[in-house]
Structure formats: C-alpha cells, structure tokens
C-alpha cells in the first residue's frame, strides 16, 4: 500500500472538557474518496475539525504528506492544501457568490480549479454570481461552499454533511459532480449521515461509534448487517 496522503494516528479530540474522539485512526491515499459515517454525536465532525485545525490535536496524531500537522492553526492547514466544506456551509453572508468563491482561492495555490471551471461544474452559480450568497437556495449554497473549497485547489477535500437539510434530488445532483472533482486527483473525505450516498461515492468507509472506529473497510465488501451493527452499536 502506498504511503497515505493523510494518516490519523490514535487521535483524541475534545470539545472543552468533553472527549469526542478516542484513539481514532484513519488513512486516506492520494486520489481516494473515503466516507466517514456514524450516528449523531459519533465524532465525525470532530474528526474533520481536528484535521482542519479547528480542534486541538497532538502534532503527530495527524500526518499530512508525511508532515505532522496536528494542532496547527486552521489557516496554516489550509495553506498546506486541506480544504473543509463546513457543516451548515458557512458561506459569508456579506459577500456575493463570486466573492465567496474568490476568497476560497485567496491563497492562490496552483491547480486545476479556477472561477470558470467552478462555473462549468455548477452553472447555477454562474447565473447568480453577483447575488449575495444568502439569496441562494440550500442546494446552491452547498454548491457554492463546495466551489469555494475547490478554489483553494486542495490536495485533500473534507466535506462535512453535504446532504444536510437538502432534498434527496438535490443531494443526488451534488453527488453527481463528485466524479468530476475526484477526476482532478484530489482526495476526498465525506462525512455523511446519508449512508447510501456515502457508500456509493466512496471506495472505503470508516464507521464511527461514540468516538471510536467501529468498522473500517472497502465500501463494496461491507454488508448491510455489518454497517448496521457498527452504526447503531447493536
């Protein structure tokens, strides 16, 4: 197996005094899509936040391209090529759609993603580029958040609950763009409650339960029963 692009090793993470992760380990290789599933409160978002630098972590607990990045500030993690699409999208309300995309690319990291390419991927955004981001529908906001993260030309894209609060048809529409994104060589970690979408999109799956990895494996090899057991702890 090639050296992973991202290696999470025995990661403990805390929200204040409450421990959210207990010795979590995870690998993501270059160009791979990995899904992290689990019930509410299983620690999925805590895992992404730790990787992105929004939660404290010991340096060696998170290695990116061989470099320890645990506990680095989020802006420094972003500069190394990790982009997070935050839960709830986190678009900037005072900025137009295009300004949101431009600020995503403000580090000017070289790569395939430019404003025209984002508009090719999400034509709905091109038509609404001059509108405030608050004028977008939920699905369009998710596209803008995804586009904004891609503008950073990341090597690793972390997506926190892309499907949250969206109609199934909109979720399918967004997930339909994933192959085009993966085709550019970026690695993706999908945190999802929509297990069906996650299993369809990802090659490998980690299932978290109460802050621990309860199950890990290739998406195609896991049975429904295994996933249900890991997900619900039954």
């Amino acid at each position, binding site marked *: 197996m090639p050296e992973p692009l991202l290696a999470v090793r025995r990661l403990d993470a805390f929200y204040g005094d409450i421990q959210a992760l207990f010795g979590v380990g995870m690998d993501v290789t270059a160009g791979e899509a990995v899904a992290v599933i689990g019930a509410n409160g299983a620690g999925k978002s805590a895992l992404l936040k730790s990787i992105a*630098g929004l939660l404290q972590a010991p340096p060696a607990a998170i290695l990116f391209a061989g470099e320890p990045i645990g506990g680095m500030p*989020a*802006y420094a993690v972003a500069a190394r090529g990790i*982009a997070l699409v935050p839960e709830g999208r986190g678009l*900037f309300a*005072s900025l137009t759609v295009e300004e949101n995309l*431009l*600020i995503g690319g*403000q580090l000017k990291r070289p790569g395939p993603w430019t404003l025209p390419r984002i508009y090719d991927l999400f034509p709905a955004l091109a038509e609404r580029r001059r509108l405030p981001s608050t004028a977008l529908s939920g699905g369009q906001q998710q596209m803008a958040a995804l586009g904004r993260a891609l503008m950073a030309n990341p090597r690793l894209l972390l997506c926190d609950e892309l499907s949250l609060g969206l109609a199934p048809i909109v979720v399918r529409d967004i997930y339909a763009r994933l192959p085009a994104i993966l085709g550019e060589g970026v690695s993706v970690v999908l945190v999802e409650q929509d297990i069906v979408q996650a299993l369809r999109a990802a090659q490998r799956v980690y299932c978290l339960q109460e802050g621990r990895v309860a199950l890990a494996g290739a998406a195609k090899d896991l049975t429904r029963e295994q996933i249900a057991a890991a997900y619900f702890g039954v």
Partner: protein
Amino acid sequence: MEWVNVILQGVLVGGLYAMFAAGLSLIFGVMRLVNIAHGDLIVLAAYLALVTTETLGIGPLTALVIVVPVMALIGYALQRLVLNRTLGDDLLPPLLVTFGLSVIIQNGLLELFTADSQKLQAGAIEVATVPLASGVYVGVLPLVQFAVAVAVIAALQFIFYRTPLGRAFRATADDAQVAQLMGLDNRHVFALAMALSLAMVAIAGVFLAVRANFDPSQGPSRLIFGFEAVIIGGLGSLWGTLAGGLILGVAQAIGAHLSPGWQILAGHIAFLIILAVRPEGLFPKVRA
C-alpha cells in the same frame, strides 16, 4: 447669507468628524471592538505631527507622509501584541483594555508635552479664502480638509468593497472561524484593519491640529464626536458615516451661531433626536 455661511462651515467641520468616525466604524465592523482609545490616538497623531514638523522643519501636510505610516505601524503592533488577546465572545475585555490605553496615552502625552495647548502652523493656507458667492467665503484649509475627508471615505469604501483586503475584512467579520479555513490568519487581518484605522486617525489628527489648539485631554471628546457620527449615519454604512459627520458639524455650527456656549450641546441634542427617532441611524446597512 449669514446662515448659508454657518451651514457651510458646519459641513466642512463635519468632514473632520466623519474622519474621526470612519476608523472607529471600520474596527467595530471588522472585529466588534469598541476602541475607547480612538480619540486619544487622534491626539497622539497630532503630537506625532507636532514632533515631526518641529524636528524636520516641514509643514503639517507634508508631515502626513511620515505620520500616516507611523500610526499605521503603531496600529498593527497594538493589535498584534495587545488587542488580539482581548478579542472573544465577550465585548468587555477589549472595552476595558482600550479604556486603560486611553488613560495611558493621555498621561503619557501630559508627561512628555505638559498640559499646554499646542497648534500646528500650516502657513498662508490657514488664512487663505475663496469666495463662493457674494458674501460667502470659505477657507482653503477647511475646503482641503473636507475634500480629504471625502477622499478618505471613498478610498475606504473602495478598499472594503472592491479589493481582496476588503473581502478578507468582510469575510472575517462574518465568520472568523470559517475565514481561517480560507487561509486567512485572523490576527493578521485584524491587525491590518487596525493599521488602516490608525492611518485614517493620523490624517484626522493632523487636520485637527492645524484647525485648532489641542492638548492631551482632548481625546475623549473626539471619541464622542466619532461615536455620534457613526450612530447618526447608521452602523456599517461608510457614506452614512460621512453624512453623520456632516449633520453633527452643521448642528454644532448652528448651535454656536445661536450662542457660543451651545456649540457642543447642539451637536449632542441632534444626536439624541436622531437616536430617539431612528435608533438604527439614517442610512443603516442591514447585515444579514
């Protein structure tokens, strides 16, 4: 004609108040920091200009070339070393720290320059006037001051809405945590905002010092004028801030014309009326 003159003088002074206010408004808008030391920093800039003009033998307007970057550097350092540590969910720590800073600046200036009032001499431009109509004359210096105020507000508006730096200011103001995910270091963004604010403070301070006498105790009243202009204009609107400054200036001029003792009072009354009638200010920019 007499009243035209009065209102015109008020408008021209209002430009200065708008400059006091713009920096205050920028800082509150970007990082929700109420800078109680803002007025004292204006007076500090005036003293810096005094030292610069006396040491180098240059005019006050030329001294801007030195005072503006020095104040910007002071702003950057102040934010990085002190004020960033006070920011958080609670508005109180920055309020207390800037209040302390205000006391330190006032007493530091008192120690260095005594309580004697000072004034910057700008030479012939101070007494030069241009006739606008028969019986209406305006001083060249107030006119320059007003033009500079409009230019400063316009420049700030441009920076805020048309440049990557302004985008970073607005994004950080919206959601500082998500802004970090875009690779923006909040501490640096906030320090740049403070540097810009103090660059404007420097311009305001030099014009203040040319226009009238100043002494170390004058900061708090400049702060009040700045606050009033911001609130009259409506939070978050830079052109509103300019309008707020002008309204305050005109109200003071009218008050002064009625009776010299009413100048300051008339400004405060105008502010209170607007606060009572339109608490959101005259031109509020509604934030989502």
